[in-house]
């Protein structure tokens, strides 16, 4: 039992702890990888005294990748929190309900058809890629809305329709993959399961402003999310323009998922698990849930990426698979609880 003031204090504590853990993980992760760099060398490099090799590995490869992991983790957590609030459904996650698959489909379509190859991202594509990904996410969201939402938001129906849409888009991607050369085929396969690719500062810079804008907007709407999670009728009674507000926050969630997919491929479950843990700690108010779940999402994704990069080194396991291995049991647990 906590009063309001305690809750705000608790939130600050939790955030501080999570930020500390994230920084710690960040530092550990910087040391690890194909090329091991000692903590001291990492510090030296970060303050500008490193060797050329360390600089290249740390600043040009490892750091942007980790920054992307943190951004994607936060973005997926925001997206999942919003979807769960709006659908009043604990099982909603942009990966599970097929939004990520829609975005993935659009990305593969874009890279394969328009560019003709899954590799080599040209500068202009860094801008077009997230846009395509976003459009794919919107397409999937529209399909889900038409098939699952209108007849009342039944949690199980939403998940079932999502699984259907997921496999539909997966099939479409497979068809495209069949036309690819072996190298592109592999690349697409890895990416679909979730892979932080094209990690470069340029890509970070392309995505970061949008990500920040959307997250700040979602935070600004946290009270609306609270009201919407009481159900449509209560929200209308409280003077919320339900249709309009729901569309706004859904758009935010879908756009965030689209951005995350363009950078990290099809990472599932993270948008489900992170908000869940956040709600377990902070209760259902979105002022607290959103930032805490974002930090949890960042931490988990960075952890998963670090594990995936190192555990079977030199073979890399794609981050999405590691996330799924960590979080799928939690999803099954939730599914059983819902029934």
């Amino acid at each position, binding site marked *: 039992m906590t009063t309001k003031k305690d809750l705000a204090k608790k939130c600050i504590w939790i955030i501080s702890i999570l930020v500390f853990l994230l920084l710690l993980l960040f530092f550990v992760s910087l040391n690890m990888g194909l090329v091991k760099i000692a903590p001291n060398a990492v510090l030296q490099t970060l303050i500008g005294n490193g060797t050329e090799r360390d600089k290249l590995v740390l600043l040009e490869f490892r750091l942007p990748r980790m920054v992307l992991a943190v951004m994607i983790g936060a973005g997926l957590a925001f997206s999942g929190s919003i979807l769960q609030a709006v659908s009043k459904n604990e099982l909603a996650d942009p990966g599970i309900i097929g939004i990520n698959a829609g975005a993935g489909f659009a990305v593969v379509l874009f890279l394969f058809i328009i560019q003709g190859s899954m590799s080599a991202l040209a500068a202009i594509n860094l801008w077009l890629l997230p846009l395509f990904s976003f459009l794919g996410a919107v397409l999937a969201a529209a399909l889900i809305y038409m098939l699952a939402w209108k007849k009342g938001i039944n949690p199980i129906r939403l998940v079932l329709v999502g699984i259907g849409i997921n496999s539909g888009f997966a099939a479409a991607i497979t068809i495209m993959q069949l036309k690819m050369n072996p190298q592109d085929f592999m690349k697409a396969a890895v990416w679909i399961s979730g892979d932080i690719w094209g990690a470069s500062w340029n890509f970070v810079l392309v995505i970061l402003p949008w990500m920040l804008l959307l997250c700040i907007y979602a935070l600004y709407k946290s009270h609306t999310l609270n009201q919407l999670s009481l159900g449509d009728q*209560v929200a209308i*009674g409280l003077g919320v323009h339900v249709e309009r507000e729901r569309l706004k926050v859904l758009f935010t969630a879908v756009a965030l998922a689209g951005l995350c997919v363009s950078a990290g491929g099809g990472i599932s479950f993270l948008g489900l698990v992170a908000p869940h843990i956040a709600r377990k700690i902070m209760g259902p108010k979105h002022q607290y849930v959103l930032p805490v779940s974002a930090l949890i999402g960042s931490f988990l994704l960075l952890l998963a990426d670090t594990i995936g990069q190192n555990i079977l080194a030199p073979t890399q396991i794609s981050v999405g698979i590691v996330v799924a291995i960590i979080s799928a049991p939690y999803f099954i647990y939730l599914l059983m609880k819902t029934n």
Partner: protein
Amino acid sequence: MSILSTEHLKIGYEEKIIVEDLSFTIQSGEITTIIGPNGCGKSTILKTLARIHKAKSGFVYLDGKAIHKIPTKQIAQKMAVLPQSPDAPAGLTVFDLISYGRSPHQKGFARLSDRDKEVIEWALKVTGLEELRDQDVDTLSGGQRQRAWIAMAIAQETELLLLDEPTTYLDMAHQLEILKLLKKLNEDENRTIVMVIHDLNHAARFSDRMIAMNKGRLMKEGTAEEVMTAEVLKNVFQIDAVVVTDPRTNKPVCLSYDLIEQEKDMNNKNGIVQEPVLV
């Protein structure tokens, strides 16, 4: 004085018309209950009054202004709505739930002002929930939970309160407790209350005015004495009712009733029914 009225309302879902042409007036400061058999459209009417459901044609007027022309937040400052069995997210405390009732009076980030806190404290007190303020709503008993939702609605500080079956799923004592609370709000705070209620005797006991509906048509409107008659109940519910006066409240009560058309259940014929469950 009229606070809420309807004019030639036609309500339905897609092709199905539920209410053909409905006009009535709710008087300020009164408790009005809408009664009628299942599927007669009472909940739909309440939802239309609450702007949750859009009418096919006709008008709802709030303070003489067409409701669809008033900004929804402005309506929420005049009229609070409590739908049937609402559902709170897991882990939401009573205090936080009630604080959401303040949102029509807030802007942006919804920080609670001193005035907001005052009102929330008052709502906690009136509904007897002070002790439970930090409890999660989903851990409360049915009666407590309903009180918490009513506390949220009254924290909205509106003249008008619309409630859809506020006593469903509650036992007899808790039903009475909720209705007495509403009556007290009506008397002490002069709140106008419109509610849908299933229990005829409760409706008669607590309302100034009753509106009896059947098949989307208004069958009878008036005081409890005018509406709770054997004849009206026969027309509205197809029951043969024995209506007497409650010696405690001096209000009409339906003491016993039977079905008019089919009398299959011979054992229960003329049996005294304390809590009329309307078929």
